[in-house]
């Protein structure tokens, strides 16, 4: 039973890692990475590592997506203002 839970979560991790790599657009990848971060937190709970799960939640659910999205926004905004200037 506990094994079945671990298998389910592990397979989801493998699938979402594949999805994160396959999403070529960074904004969409950030969404998948945020999902992957939360999923990893669940995996760590299942593997009896609540401390690690907490830090993964703290980092993966809001911080990393925020960093990536800010980066994407800056790059997009830059592209837009360059086009305006032309």
């Amino acid at each position: 039973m506990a094994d079945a839970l671990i298998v389910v979560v592990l397979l989801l991790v493998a699938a979402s890692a594949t999805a994160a790599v396959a999403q070529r657009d960074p904004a969409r990848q950030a969404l998948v990475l945020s999902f992957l971060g939360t999923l990893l937190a669940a995996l760590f709970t299942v593997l009896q590592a609540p401390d690690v799960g907490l830090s993964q939640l703290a980092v993966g659910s809001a911080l990393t997506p925020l960093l990536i999205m800010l980066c994407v926004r800056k790059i997009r905004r830059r592209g837009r203002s360059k086009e305006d200037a032309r």
Partner: protein
Amino acid sequence: MNGWILAATVALGGGGAAALWGVTTGPPARRVIAQNLTTSAFCPALLLLAQGYGRPAYVDLALLLALLGPVGTLVFARLLSDDLSAQDASAWGLTWTAAVLGAAAVVALCVAVGPGRAMVKLLVIGVLLIGGNVIASRALAGGFRGVRGG
């Protein structure tokens, strides 16, 4: 083993697979909604796991997810507002279904732990989870207008 873990397996497996599918396919609006669904599926699952493993200390994880999950969604709602405003990003049926399921899990757990500090914590998590989800859905459905500059 016990029913709590079985329920958590179902929530993680079913909710996780559905959210993964939603996050990787379709238009941006749908992806963000699926991202929001992640919180509503995983937070009750974490609560159920804490109960299933007999470890009240694990409840902190659910608390953090209930707090930070909606924040993550707000990040996307805010920074993708240009993409989202082009489409209708509301899915109230889904939101309320998730809220009801989350509430059901919290109520079941409250019954299991009985009155006390643990129950108060569970109720706080429940309120944060449901409130956060509803607000995140609201934000997706046009909570941010005219944020080009900021």
